[in-house]
Each structure stands twice: as structure tokens, then as C-alpha cells.
């Protein structure tokens, strides 16, 4: 199909004003299904395009920057598919969550107390003021949601450094507004902090891009050949790119913004930020460092390896200490990105493939877990672990999905987590043996040990939310609406299918990774 990727990227952007309009006029339900429809169509386009092997589109752009292209190869397609699948599914999930949120905010603005009798609050719900408010806000929300989605997809499909940078920043703007408008707590301050940190990271990234592009006179990926760049420029560019992407990845040292942003963002957005967006940092490392600057990659890989280890342990240890469930998951994302970083540092096809599969896995598993947190916020009204407990009997479907998500993060078969994990650890081991490098062997051993840490914080979280004695004020909690449960069930099913039959993605990933010639 012609223009498939162009449509997939720009259709959401072009139709976002329409989503706003529909939300305003028709209300959240229509806006939800409209958004869902667009994204579903685009997802099908992406999946369809990826079926026939590598797929490319090129469009003319300015002479200054080069070509404006889209490339869907073995590396990009798992990222692209996962990003759009998550966006599509979360569009549905957003509806009950955001409506709940808008109503809460409306009540806050108008100083309406929670403890009014049921009859009055139903009357309130139907009151025109609230309705207009909800309609307006949902229109705005879904418009931003669409722009956010296209920004992420554009980044992983781009074939040009400047194009990459533009999309990289495009996804930042809507996510800033989504947090600043719909977040919890000191949302504006946190949104600003998120914006500053990732923007500074992006600017450092741009410095790296410029130093490459200006040296060789082209920004197209296809033209970048490391041998043509002076080695001192290469190393500076590589370090700049790694730091820039490290901020996005929230690797240890640059992770400060992540727990705040993920904690404050409205939950569907946390579920996009965490698995889909920060992983794009990993995509950048694959494309820009591993593929385009192989020598710099070979030199720096062991540092990435240890940086990954530090991130794994640090994120895991911090996750143990949190009482806010969303912050547990936020630190868990830090830790999981450590796994990805570790895999990228493994310098072997298996390890890289495992790291990419880890991204997919994390998207599924962490998506499920954040969605669980969202259900808790809507249905239970708290996200403090110390106030939860024994909810498995009250929220059975949520509990099952959460456990599947948790198993995915822990890397227990038959979920996809195991497939990612064993490959990336094996890759690290293989390189350690081949090089006879004791440091790498140490990193491998530490990495395996950190899986126990991951398991501990996840199981402990599950225990505190779903098992044990149920607090007395939670005895009337009910399971979430189907808008929330059905998306979770889709993800839960997918993680198991992928865990048993990982060929779905590996058939794309492995040829690409083998082609890197490591």
C-alpha cells in the first residue's frame, strides 16, 4: 500500500483537531471511539507494512537536511507495532479513567464535597456545567493523545537525524501538556521538570547529531559511515548521543524526572510514557550507536553494560522503598530500562535481540501494571500500598491481568518476559566467554542476580495490593468497567502468546541483528 507509513504517522496529527471538535460537541464516548478508530487503522497499516519484510518510503525534503523517509525494518517494526498497539488500546482505557479524573477536577474547582448524598451527585453529573467541562476536556485530551502517538511512531520510523530529532521533540510537547493539565499533585512543576530534563537531553542529542551531520555533510542515516568521520568527532558524537538518549531512558544518574513524571501523569499516559516513550531511548541507541557507529559501540559497550547493571539494581532497590504504587512501577521502569541497556551493551546478536524483545515485553508488562494502578485509582480511590490489601477477591479480572503483567516483568515463562530475558543474558554471557573478559562475566552474574531483586519488589507489590487481609473500608470495591478490563485482557493474552511463540517478532529482529556483523 502506498503512503502507508506517511498515513500512519500524519493521519493522527491531521485529525487531532477533529478529535477535539468531536469531544467538544459529542462528548467523551465519541471522542474515544474516534481516536480508537484512527489509531486502529494506523496500527493495521503499520502491521500490514511490516509483514512483507523491510519497507521504506522516501519523500523530498529540504536540501539542507536531506530526505524525509520512513523505514520499517527488523529493528523498527517491533517498536512501531508495540507503540501503536499500546496507543490504540490505551485510547479505550482512557475513557473511564479520564472522565473520572475530569469529574474529580471539576468538583475540586467548584468546591463540591465528596460526601454529598448519592442522589445529589447523580444530579450533578447530569448538570450541564459538568457535562460541558468533561466534553471540552476530553476533546483536548484525545487531541493531545493523538499527537503524542504520532510523535513516538515518527521517531522510530525516521531515516534522518534531523527528522529523528523533530519527532523526538514532537512527542515531548503533548506529553508535557498532558501532565501539566491532567496530572496529580504539583503537576505543573513536575511537567516543567520533565520537560526541562528531556529537552536538555534532546539538545545534547542534537549536538551529537550536528557534529556528525556537519562533518560528513549529510544527515541521512544511509550516508553516515563511521569511517568517513574523524575518530575524535565520532567519540564525542557517540557520547553526546548516549547521554541524550540516556536521559530519555532514565538510566541511573539521569532518572530523576522519571518517578515524578510517571507518578504525576494521568495513568493512561503513564502507561504510554513508561513502556513506549522511554524505550525510544533504547531504539535510538540501537539505530544511532549500534548500527551507525559500530566502532564507537564496540568501544563503549562494556560501559553500557555496567551502566545497565547499576540502573537495574538502583531502580529495583528504590522500587522496594515506595509506598505509592505508581512510583513503584516508575522505579521498576528505571530498572527494566537497565535490562535493556545491559542487553545493548552485550555486544552480541542474541543480547541485542533480547534487549529489543525486552522493550516489547516491558511495553506489555508495564502497560498491564500501570493499567492496574489506574483501576485501583478509579475503583478504590487510593494508590498507597499501605492502604490496600486483599483485593484479589474484589477485583478478580484485574488481579489476573496484574499477575500476568507482573510475571512478564519478572521474566517467568510462559510470558514474553522470559524470552527477552534469557536472550539478553545469554548474549552477555556469550561475549564474556568469547572475549575471555572477567568484567563482562561479572556483569553477567550481577545481571542474573538482579532478576531476584526484580522478583522481590514485584511479588511484594502484588502481596500488598491483592493478597492478605482486606481493609474494612474496601469491602465494597468492584471491578473496573470493560473499557478498562478488555484492553488489559488483550495485552495479557498477547504477552503469553509471545512468550510461547516469540517468532512473531524474532523472525524480524534476528536477521537484522545478525546483519550487524557482530
Amino acid at each position, binding site marked *: 500500500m502506498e503512503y502507508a507509513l506517511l498515513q500512519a504517522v500524519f493521519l493522527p496529527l491531521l485529525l487531532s483537531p477533529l478529535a477535539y471538535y468531536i469531544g467538544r460537541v459529542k462528548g467523551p464516548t465519541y471522542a474515544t471511539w474516534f481516536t480508537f478508530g484512527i489509531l486502529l487503522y494506523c496500527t493495521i497499516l503499520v502491521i500490514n507494512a511490516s509483514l512483507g519484510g523491510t519497507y521504506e518510503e522516501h519523500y523530498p525534503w529540504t536540501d539542507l537536511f536531506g530526505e524525509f523517509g520512513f523505514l520499517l525494518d527488523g529493528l523498527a517494526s517491533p517498536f512501531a507495532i508495540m507503540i501503536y498497539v499500546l496507543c490504540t488500546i490505551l485510547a479505550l482505557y482512557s475513557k473511564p479513567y479520564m472522565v473520572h479524573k475530569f469529574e474529580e477536577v471539576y468538583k475540586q474547582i467548584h468546591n463540591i464535597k465528596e460526601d454529598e448524598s448519592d442522589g445529589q451527585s447523580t444530579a450533578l453529573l447530569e448538570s450541564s456545567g459538568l457535562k460541558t467541562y468533561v466534553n471540552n476536556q476530553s476533546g483536548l485530551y484525545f487531541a493531545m493523545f493523538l499527537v503524542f502517538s504520532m510523535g513516538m511512531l515518527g521517531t522510530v520510523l525516521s531515516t534522518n537525524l534531523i527528522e529523528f530529532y523533530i519527532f523526538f521533540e514532537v512527542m515531548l510537547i503533548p506529553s508535557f501538556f498532558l501532565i501539566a493539565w491532567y496530572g496529580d499533585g504539583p503537576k505543573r512543576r513536575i511537567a516543567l521538570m520533565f520537560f526541562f530534563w528531556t529537552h536538555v537531553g534532546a539538545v545534547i542529542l542534537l549536538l551529537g547529531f550536528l557534529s556528525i551531520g556537519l562533518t560528513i555533510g549529510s544527515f541521512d542515516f544511509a550516508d553516515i559511515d563511521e569511517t568517513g568521520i574523524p575518530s575524535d568527532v565520532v567519540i564525542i558524537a557517540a557520547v553526546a548521543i548516549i547521554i541524550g538518549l540516556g536521559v530519555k531512558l532514565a538510566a541511573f544518574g539521569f532518572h530523576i524526572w522519571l518517578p515524578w513524571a510517571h507518578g504525576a501523569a494521568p495513568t493512561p499516559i503513564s502507561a504510554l510514557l513508561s513502556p513506549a516513550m522511554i524505550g525510544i531511548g533504547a531504539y535510538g541507541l540501537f539505530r544511532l550507536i549500534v548500527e551507525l557507529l559500530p566502532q564507537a559501540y564496540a568501544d563503549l559497550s562494556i560501559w553500557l553494560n555496567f551502566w545497565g547493571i547499576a540502573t537495574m539494581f538502583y531502580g529495583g532497590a*528504590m522500587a522496594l522503598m515506595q509506598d505509592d504504587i505508581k512510583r513503584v512501577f516508575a522505579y521498576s521502569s528505571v530498572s527494566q530500562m537497565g535490562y535493556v541497556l545491559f542487553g545493548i551493551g552485550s555486544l552480541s546478536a542474541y543480547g541485542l535481540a533480547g534487549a529489543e524483545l525486552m522493550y516489547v515485553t516491558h511495553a506489555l508488562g508495564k502497560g498491564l501494571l500501570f493499567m492496574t494502578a489506574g483501576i485501583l485509582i478509579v475503583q478504590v480511590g487510593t494508590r498507597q500500598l499501605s492502604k490496600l490489601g486483599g483485593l484479589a477477591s474484589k477485583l478478580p479480572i484485574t488481579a489476573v491481568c496484574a499477575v500476568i503483567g507482573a510475571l512478564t516483568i519478572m521474566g517467568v515463562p510462559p510470558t514474553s518476559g522470559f524470552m527477552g530475558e534469557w536472550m539478553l543474558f545469554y548474549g552477555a554471557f556469550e561475549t564474556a566467554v568469547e572475549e575471555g573478559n572477567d568484567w563482562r562475566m561479572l556483569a553477567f552474574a550481577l545481571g542474573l542476580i538482579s*532478576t531476584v531483586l526484580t522478583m522481590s519488589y514485584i511479588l511484594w507489590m502484588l502481596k500488598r495490593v491483592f493478597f492478605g487481609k482486606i481493609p474494612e473500608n474496601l469491602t465494597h470495591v468492584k471491578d473496573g468497567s470493560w473499557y478498562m478490563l478488555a484492553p488489559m485482557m488483550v495485552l495479557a493474552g498477547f504477552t503469553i502468546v509471545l512468550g510461547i511463540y516469540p517468532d512473531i517478532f524474532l523472525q524480524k529482529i534476528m536477521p537484522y541483528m545478525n546483519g550487524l556483523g557482530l
Partner: protein
Amino acid sequence: MVSIDTVASDPNGIYVWLIWLLPFIGALIIPGVVRISKYVPGLTTGRVAIAFAAMSAVSAGSLFLGALDGIEIHDQITWISALGLKAGVLADPLSIIMANVVGWISFLIICYSTGYMKGDKDITRFWFWMMFFIGSMQLIVLSDNLLQIFFGWEGVGLASYALISFWYRDKAKDHVGKEGRTALGIMEYYSPTHSGMKAFIMTKVGDIMMLAGMFMIFAFAGTFGLKELLYETSWAVEMSAQSLLVPAAVLLFGGAVGKSAQFPLNEWLLEAMTGPTAVSALIHAATMVKAGVFLVARLGPLFFALGAAGIMADQFFEIIAWVGAITALLLATQGMVNPEIKKVLAYSTGSQIGYMMMALGVAGLSTQYVDGYTAGFFHLISHAMFKASLFMAAGSLLHVVGSRFMTDMGGLRKQMRKTYAFMWAAGLALMGAPFITTGFWSKDAIFAAVYESGSGWALPIFIIAVLTAVITAFYTTRMIGMVFFGKNSKHIEKMESEGHHIHEAPLSMWIPYGILAVLTIGIGVIGLSAEEGIHHLFTDYLEESFGIHTPHIDLEHSETLGFLSGLNPVALGSSLVAFSVGFGLGYIFYIGRWIDPAKFINSNIFFYALHKLILNRYYLNSMIYWSFVIAPLWLARGLYRYFERTAIDTGMNIGFERAIGWGAKVVQGTQTGVAQSYLYVFGAGVLFVVLILFI
């Protein structure tokens, strides 16, 4: 013979696939059955579970006769084509016999569960995980490659987590241990959800070792397949040249240590008793802990066979033997003092598994590999039968008495005659009562294998084995004595006075453990020929599959013993002595009740201290908690408070903000708006430039 590239296939393969697929299918349809059972009379989840467990067992049974002829079914399909990995089943005599043990015992336990779990409102979840458990175990047994085994391996761990914390509401009656008791500051009182976590995490420690071992082999051999590894052994030569072969083997064994609750990863097994008793029976007799032994039996011959190529893995077998011996003694001693019936049985399981490991270990140290191998595996079979029976009987007791403490039982032999009889039968097998129980023959075979192995370690291990046998006989007698003899306890009297009538467990419960108890004695009577049959079978199996040749030994020297010909007189003698000493001591304290054990323990400081040490689990559990739970949490808390909150959060967030604000103030200070000061600065600048240009 299979090389890496070919895909093996076998027309009978489908039966093998079905053995492990059927329980999974059953697990998946059970949640659906709940929905339609309202409309279909007679359709209950329990019956569906029984049907699928039976079908799986029958398909295992259909291969049994073939196993006696030494057939081998190897069937593969492509799995992860991107990595060139295949999934497959491998049914050889070892795995077929194991599949039958697992299948039939699980089937009986499932039948028993219909009575035991009757009326539990979470019954669907129970059946789902029980079937998942059985399926995962059969997957381990029948897989033809390590990666697939690992799937089953983790599946078993997952199912155990789910079932140990089955009663997740953490009611006081579902806990284990005594409230308020501590050892070195660590509570000895665990809730089901805590125990489930503990089991999952502790076995995971073993699992990562196994994973590392698998990676080592895969890195050199490029395959996970068991047949492929055997077909081409150049990988072993290379590994051994880099002295990585033994570490790899030991790491693989690490997985077995975790799963089979061997020292030092044994502590999860006790808390696993929070699960329903049917689950404990399944974990201890058919699945989970047997997986470790099976893995050693599966991989041991592979490493032994390498000996023919001059690649020795002696340290590997020595480690197995010693881990087994230490565990056997360590856990048996703890079984002597514990007041909870299920915990006594749990200690006993760990200890008996230690025996099996010991046998499989010494096998590799002797030239007669098949002796130890047969002994270990025979003990696995007999243990599966009597331990399943004992656990199910204990479940009946718990069900009837409503307490897990043996001190709350007492004098039940009149009220529960059938359970009493069956528990004696199975208990005698555990003690190794001479000539009529399977336990006797299998334990005797282990003694003989250890004694005859010719290894330098044979004597100390043999002494430990005999000592453990004495203790085993003692604690089993103690258990039966405390439960069935003496007067009814106050607890029972109170129950009776409140109108509860203490009576025998229902039919669906006592029949399964009755069958196993009878079988234990039945097979025990022909025990020697049964063992010889297995011995013969395994001799052929090892010869054909692994090329391990067993030299024939002249048996004439022992002909004097008549029907006991072929038995080692030292082993036989020690076995008899161990039984009589242990049983005698137990009788004195707990059946005859001539001496009060409490008074005896308190009679002098040495016994008192020893009792306390053993009751506190040699403080091993406490030390594990201090070093792997409390210390890391303390470390994480410190890191969170003094690094994340200060250096990262405050430093990088508020610190940057302040720094920029301060910088802005400094710059602001220069913007005075006074023309004169601007002019001064301008003049200074001009002067500076001029000076630079001229100097």
C-alpha cells in the same frame, strides 16, 4: 541419533505430547466449565479435573509396556525458527516411568482433593493451578531440550507460588509456625502469602544458577537438545579444556538444589506447608521437589558418559553426593522435634530427597553407575507412593481435628481406624521396615550403592546415611505415636464436648491414600524383584542411550543368604539395625510412653541446647532472613533516604533551580540602570582590548 539440523519425528509422538498437554488443556477449560456447569447437570470442575488428570495418566500408562522394552520416542517440531530452536518430546524408559509416577499419583491426589477442598469458594482457581502444576511437571519430564525443561521448571515454581499462597486471605488458621516464637529475632510464624513469595524467590535463586549452566552449555554446544548434546560431544572437550564443564554441571545442579529444597536452599520447604494439604502432597510426592531429582537423573548419565571420552566430572558427582548427605541428616534431625505434623513430613521429604541425591551422586563416583542410579530412582518411586499417602492421611487428620499441631491430636487410633492403619503402612515404608515395604528395599539399595561405590567418600557418607535412617525411624514413630496413641488431647475433648463428632474422613479421601498405602506394602513384598527389574531396565537404558557399559559382577559370594542373594550384607545389616534402634527409641518415648520426652530434654543442659538448636532450624532460616531480606532492605532504605532523596531529588531538582535562580540574581545585579557604571565597564573593556592588541 540426531544432529542439530534434523528434526526428529515419531508416529507415536502424539501420545507423549498429550501427556503434558492434556493437563494444560484441562487447566484452560476449567474456568469456562464454571460458566456452563449451571446448565449441564453433573458437570463440575472437579470432575473435569479428574478426567483430564486421568487421560494424561492413561496416555503415560499406554507407553509403560514399551518402556519395559526400552523404547525411545523422540518427536520434534520447529519452535523458534529465528534461533534454530526446536521443541520436542523425548520419551525413554526413564521419562516414561517418571511420567507414570507423576501421572498416577497426581490423579489420586486430584481425586482426594475433591473431598478435601469440598465447599471452598475458590475451587476453580485451585483446579486451574493443580492442573497447571501437573502439566508443568510432565513438561519437565518429557522435554527433549533444556530450554523447554526450563519452561516447565518455572511453571512448577509459579504453580507452587500460587498454591502455597492459595488461601491468600492470610487467616490465622492457615499460617504455619507458632505465633510469637522467634529465632534470632526472626519470627517463626508465616502467612500463606509470605510463604508463597519465599518459595518462589528461593527457588528462583536456584533457577538463575540453572539458567547460567544452560547458557554455558549452549555457548559451546549451540543447542539445548539432550539428544543433540549426546550426539556430538566436542563441546564438552572444549569446555573441559577451559575448565568450564564442572562449573556448568554444578550450576545446573544448583537449579535442582533450589527446586528440591536441598541445603542451603532448603528453608522454603517448611513454609510451603501453608498450602492446602493436597497441594503439599502434590509438591512432595509427584511434582516440584521431585523435579530436581529428575533433572539430576536426566543429566547425570550425560556427564558420566563423558568419562568414556576422558572428560571426568568427578567433582560434580561429589558435590551432589555431599549436598544430598548433608541435607538428609540436617532435615531429618529437625523432623524429630517439630510439633506440626505437616512440617515433620516436610522435613522428612527434604531428608529423603537428600538420600536420592546421595545415591545419584555416588553413582557417578563408582564404576557401577547403574547401581546408584537405580537405587536413587527406585527410592524416588517408593517415596512418591508413601509420602503421597502420608500427606493425604495427614490432610485427613487436619480436616477432622482442625489443628496442625500433633499435640492437639493424640489417641485417634480408635476414632480413625482406616487412617491409622494406612498411616502405619506408609509410615513403615518411610522407616524402612524390613522386607515388606518398598522403602526398605530402596533405602537398602542406596546403602549398598554408597557402600560399594569405592569412592574415597564412601565411608563418611555411608555413616551419615545410616544415622539418618535411625533418625527417620525415630521421628516417624514419634509422629504416629503422638497422633494415634495416648489419650485424646484437650483440643479433641473440647471439640467433642462442643458436639463435633470425631470420625473417619470421607470415602473420596481415604481411598486414594489407602490405595497408595496398600501398594507400598504390595510392591514391598516383591520389592527385591521390582528393584532388579528396574536395575535391568536401566542397565540397558544407560547402555543404549548413553553408551555407559556396566561390567557384570560375579554374584556368587553372596549366595549363602538364600533369597537375599545379591544384597550387600553390610548394607542389609545396617539397615536392620537402623530401623530397630530408631523404632525402639520412638516406641519408648511416644508409643509406650515410658519416659516423658519433655522431661528427658530438660534433664540436662546439653540436650536442652541441642533441642533448641534443632527446633530453631540451626538458625539457618534466621541467618538467611538477616542477610538476604533485612540487610538489603536496610541498604535500600539508606540509599533511598540519603542518596535518592538528597543527592538526586534535592540536588538535581531543587539544587539546579536554586543555582539558576542565584545565577540570575548575580546577573541581575549588574543591570543597575545607572549609565555611569555601564560607562565604566565599557571603558574597562576598551582598555582591555587595547591592551591585548598592543601587548
